[in-house]
């Protein structure tokens, strides 16, 4: 189910502007890796290169290699659509499809991936995914109501259910709690702890306590100045990054001395 991500020499561009420069790192399977760093340091851009969403942006371009076990996502002849079916994503703002019911939202990905599927089987997957996202109990009596009618935190868990319904290898989360209140945030964080048993999880966050709480490894990104590309400063065990980082800039950022 979960695969290792091995990035080497990866740079990403918006037109002629270089957003991230020469990043190499390994993301371990069945673990949570958190990306932290000041705004504009390219951590979201980097996240979006991991499922080839970066190139959807007009002018978006990527150089380098992303190996998912032994397959290069940027290899010749690799279809970005099939990459995104293997590497799921959850966004900053909850974005359930507004015209679809809760049930249809969860089923949306399966209908794309599998094409035809028997109703009973689909019911099963929808229930399993909603349970996996700790949402089943709250919505099981109103599966046919619009997904947009849920609270923000429930919508975000619905989006997680939608993402895991297609059984991806990797789950990318781009600041999944930044639009949520503390209680909903806690619910999502608990969920992340459960999901890492099954998936490789990468999470971008501005909340350092959150990174410390949920992640096994933490990567710190930084940029030299405005207009400069973002770089990976270091990646290490989360406990080590937050207690005894090997680079001074990491310690400065974590202790709030800049950024």
């Amino acid at each position: 189910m979960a695969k290792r991500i091995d990035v080497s020499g990866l740079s990403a561009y918006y037109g002629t502007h270089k957003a991230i420069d020469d990043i190499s790192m390994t993301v371990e399977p069945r673990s949570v890796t958190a990306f932290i760093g000041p705004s504009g340091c390219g951590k979201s851009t980097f996240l979006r290169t991991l499922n080839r969403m970066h190139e959807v942006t007009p002018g978006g371009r990527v150089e380098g290699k992303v190996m998912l076990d032994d397959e290069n996502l940027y290899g010749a002849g690799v279809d970005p659509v099939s990459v995104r079916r293997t590497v799921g994503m959850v966004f900053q703002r909850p974005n359930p499809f507004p015209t679809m019911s809760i049930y249809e939202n969860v089923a949306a990905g399966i209908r794309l991936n599998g094409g035809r599927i028997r109703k009973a089987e689909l019911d099963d997957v929808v229930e399993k995914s909603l349970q996996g996202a700790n949402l089943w109990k709250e919505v099981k009596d109103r599966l046919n109501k619009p997904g947009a009618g849920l609270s923000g935190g429930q919508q975000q868990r619905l989006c997680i259910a939608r993402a895991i319904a297609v059984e991806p290898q990797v789950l990318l989360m781009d600041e999944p709690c930044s639009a949520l209140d503390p209680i909903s945030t806690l619910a999502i964080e608990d969920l992340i702890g459960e999901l890492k048993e099954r998936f490789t999880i990468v999470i971008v966050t501005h909340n350092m306590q959150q990174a410390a709480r949920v992640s096994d490894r933490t990567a710190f990104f930084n940029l030299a100045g405005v207009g400069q590309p973002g770089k990976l400063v270091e990646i290490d065990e989360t406990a080590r990054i937050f207690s005894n980082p090997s680079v001074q800039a990491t310690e400065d950022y974590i202790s709030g001395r800049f950024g």
Partner: protein
Amino acid sequence: MDITSSTADSSPPARPGAKPGSKAANAAKGATRPGDRIFLALSRGSGLLLLVIMAAIAAFLAVRATNALSHNEGNFFTTFEWSANATPPVFGIAVLAFGTIVSSLIAMIIAVPVAIGVALFISHYAPRRLAAPLAYVIDLLAAVPSIVYGLWGALFLVPHLGGLYSWMNDYLGWTGVFAYHDGAARSLFTIGILLAIMILPIVTSVSREVFLQAPKMHEEAALALGATRWEVIRMAVLPFGRSGVISASMLGLGRALGETMAVATVLSPSFTIGKSLLDPGGGTFAQNIASSFKESGEIGKDALIASGLVLFVLTLLVNGAARLIIARRKEYSE
């Protein structure tokens, strides 16, 4: 509750000299500056003027139409004849209503799918360098005067449709509706094709605007699930744009229903409803008014006004239906 009542009670003593209606009392209410008052009078006046003009037009049309209807010896809704200038006058709108609705429907069936396709191509498929000029050309098409379309239809479309009609006759002639008997192609179907071309720009450009506004976050949600470009459109763009496309189509339908010069130029009018849509003949409300207004006497003109009123009601119904469809989808749209 307590707070508001106490402030209301305490305000008059706070301004001892203020009598009701004086400047100070008005200042508390708001609009007292001369500029405000002038603008209020102007905007309220324009609003009222519009209503008065509308009412005057409606009254005028209703009076004239009633005059004609009281003299009519035929049935206004079922008579297949328009002899409004004869004594006694005999006229009915059956043929006109049929021709108007059928030709507009044909136009919609042809134009709406094409317009949606073109709009999607411009908004989601075409590279930017191509999209902008293409959108501009489409908008330009809407600016061509309808008489130009009419001339093009009469001089080019009519002589060149024979082949298509023979082909349709070969495969669909058995239905009767698409049988073709080698006449000039001045039929309701030709009108439908011409109207389709005429409403294409407006339907396209309104749809395009709606598709461009489809929220990026939902498109990205679909992409991240592994949707192809078409699947993104189906999941995130079309559902969002549905009500907009309906409005666009209704705008187009409105134009098709009321189109006058192009129809009058191309159609060879007759007061019959042919079995086949490909045979020449038929008529529409607007075309009939344009073609026979000049030669009409008093009653004839009033009869044309009556038919115009029917067209007006028809357009109202179409718009009402469109609003109903849009309102019913509200629950699911943002």
